[in-house]
């Protein structure tokens, strides 16, 4: 057990700088429970119940007749048969497939077929659910704290000024490793050399700021050649453009596991760093990572753009190309998790380029400490 200072999560902004309790870095982290996690895309949750494990809680997800999404523990109160194998009934009800016990969306038993009364203890946990930004969000911690205002800002997902689509990647690694990956994009040069990588990424300076439960990493690369991915994008808006570009990556992290990256290129010297992006193309890489177990996670992502909104062709092309890029990350992250597991006696060494990821880790560790759950994995 590590002894960590308990920091009131609401007071993080003004909290005195706390030094790490230990000299080593937790290679992987536990997951705060008082947080909204994406359980599924909106289209995945239907009248036919589905099963998904979030933060080590198996959930049965389904929609009530009125369309409302419901998340119940995926284990019947009686003999723990998975409710996700059952069927939905009228209103908001779901029936256990084994002995027919029926629950409502609050997880309360409304029918026990084999007896005339309903056992007053017969309930399964029901978790707060909010549908927003094309996702179904679930809160697994203290329900009295489940304020929908705490859902991370992913407004580009549903804003009509943006278009795009995404997918889910099941990754066999701790969710923190995905966050590390997204907070430090110097890896693009080496992992994604054929698409978005270029040596300027490692050469250019970056700025890290943090405030409240957010961390921002900003990197500008001026007057460079556009890498293949961005050459195609800028040509979608400015056909035939072959010149130099100013490229930006502004990484916004919101605790505990959402990262939205403002990315783009503009014709070099047209004022993008000063705020005039009219001569460029702008994307938003929407990432939210839901821990599944200590060593697996659901990586929900989408690529949104604010140009050529009418083109379903571009939407599909971007989704496919980003998907190929992320497959390279997936392979690396799974290899990294395997190496972490295979070398339990080796520590991490943290570099200057890890500053963004280290702030992310500190915010998550503070949140875990506030929940009394900051325990390094064995």
């Amino acid at each position, binding site marked *: 057990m590590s002894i960590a200072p308990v920091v009131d999560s609401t007071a993080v902004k003004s909290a005195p700088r706390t030094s790490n309790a230990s000299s080593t870095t937790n290679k992987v982290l536990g997951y705060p429970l008082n947080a909204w996690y994406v359980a599924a895309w909106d289209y995945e949750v239907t009248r036919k119940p589905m099963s998904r494990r979030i933060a080590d809680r198996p959930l049965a997800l389904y929609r009530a007749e009125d369309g409302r999404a419901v998340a119940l*523990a995926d284990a019947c*109160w009686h003999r*723990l048969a998975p409710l996700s194998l059952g069927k939905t009934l009228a209103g908001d009800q779901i029936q256990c497939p084994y002995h027919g016990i029926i629950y409502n969306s*609050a997880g309360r038993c409304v029918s026990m077929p084999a007896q005339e*009364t309903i056992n007053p203890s017969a309930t399964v946990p029901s978790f707060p659910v909010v549908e927003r930004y094309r996702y179904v969000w679930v809160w697994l911690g203290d329900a009295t704290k*489940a304020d929908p205002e705490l859902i991370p800002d992913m407004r580009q997902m549903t804003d009509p000024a943006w278009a795009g689509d995404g997918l889910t990647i099941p990754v066999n690694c701790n969710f923190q490793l995905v966050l590390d990956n997204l907070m430090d994009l110097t890896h693009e040069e080496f992992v994604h050399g054929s698409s978005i990588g270029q040596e300027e990424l490692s050469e250019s300076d970056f700025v890290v700021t943090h405030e409240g439960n957010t961390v921002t990493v900003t990197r500008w690369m001026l007057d460079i050649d556009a890498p293949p991915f961005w050459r195609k994008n800028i040509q979608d808006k400015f056909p035939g453009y072959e010149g130099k570009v100013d490229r930006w990556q502004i990484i916004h992290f919101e605790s505990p596991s959402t990262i939205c990256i403002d990315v783009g290129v503009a014709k070099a010297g047209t004022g993008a760093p000063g705020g005039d992006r009219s001569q460029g193309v702008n994307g938003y890489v929407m990432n939210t990572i839901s821990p599944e177990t200590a060593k697996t996670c659901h990586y929900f992502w989408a690529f949104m753009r604010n140009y050529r909104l009418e083109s379903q062709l571009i939407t599909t092309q971007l989704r496919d190309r980003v998907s190929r890029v992320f497959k390279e990350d997936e392979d690396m992250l799974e290899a990294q998790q395997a190496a972490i597991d295979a070398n339990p006696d080796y520590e991490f060494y943290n570099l200057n380029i890890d500053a963004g990821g280290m702030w992310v880790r500190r915010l998550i560790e503070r949140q875990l400490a506030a929940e009394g759950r900051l325990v390094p994995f064995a």
Partner: protein
Amino acid sequence: MAATNIEVWQQATVVETAAVTEQIQRIVLRPDLPRRADPGSHIDVKLLNGAASLQDEVLKRSYSVVESADDGARLTISVFRAPSSRGGSLAMHALRVGDTLQITQPLQNFPLRIGAPRYLLLAGGIGITAIAAMARVLRELHADYTLVYAGRSRADMAYLNELQELHGDRLVAHINDEGTNLEVASVVGALAPDTELYMCGPIRLMDSVRRNWLERRLNPANLRFETFGNSGWYAPQEFTVRIPRLGIEATVGPDRSMLEALEDAGADMMFDCRKGECGLCEVRVLRLDGAIDHRDVFYSERQQKAAEKICCCVSRVASVGGEAGAAQGSGQGLPSIVIEVP
């Protein structure tokens, strides 16, 4: 819920005791393995009861957590001393600061759902112990709630002043000796249909609410209650129980359950919850001299009236006319029951 209710027995130290009424003792415990107690949770307690019989026996009792502070490092329970109760209350009242006892972590069979449009919390007597923490949370969440608290007299009602101070107009007290008796029909009759009602109290009160709830055709899933099976329509009396097939006969004292008496007499009994919920301890009634005091929530009213089976973990036999509060000891023979067991 089962997964979160695996009992983790641990030692707890008594850190405070105080009489809150003549018969109710407030006891603050410091568990060795603190865990936050959500509203509606209870702990089970193991006690050595030397007073109830010549032989020491281990008693297991359930008490609602009235308040959980410091993330469960301070658990407050309140114990009503009933001379005719199951015997645990006397031992609990004897606890002093520094004493230790075995308890479970907070167990949850009565969870408060967050997010209902409106709530009615209904407590009768010592039932306030299960309800007080719910009221506090709903107040903090600015929920639409009313706390109805009924008791015999102001002096008998634990925490009444504190609750009035905290909840103001949201607390409605009904006090028999002040002539403001609780009228269940009018309380249930006035409810908006989407109200969730959480109640804990004597069985007469809860039966009455259940009946009114059914009559008004309110959603049964919105009527929440907790019972530890220790409240009946009759005061607990001594009675005899016989199982002819096994040649077993036992006398059930007022502070024992029929199940305990049969176990003591050597019957191999099946049971689980021991609080009148699950129905596993059901036995068939062959003959009856007296009235059955059904204290379970397993049987429907129809089944209870039929009196063919009873839950022996909580239900009892009473002499007819021996209703709770009525004079006891008519001088006739003990009420009795003849049963068959699986």
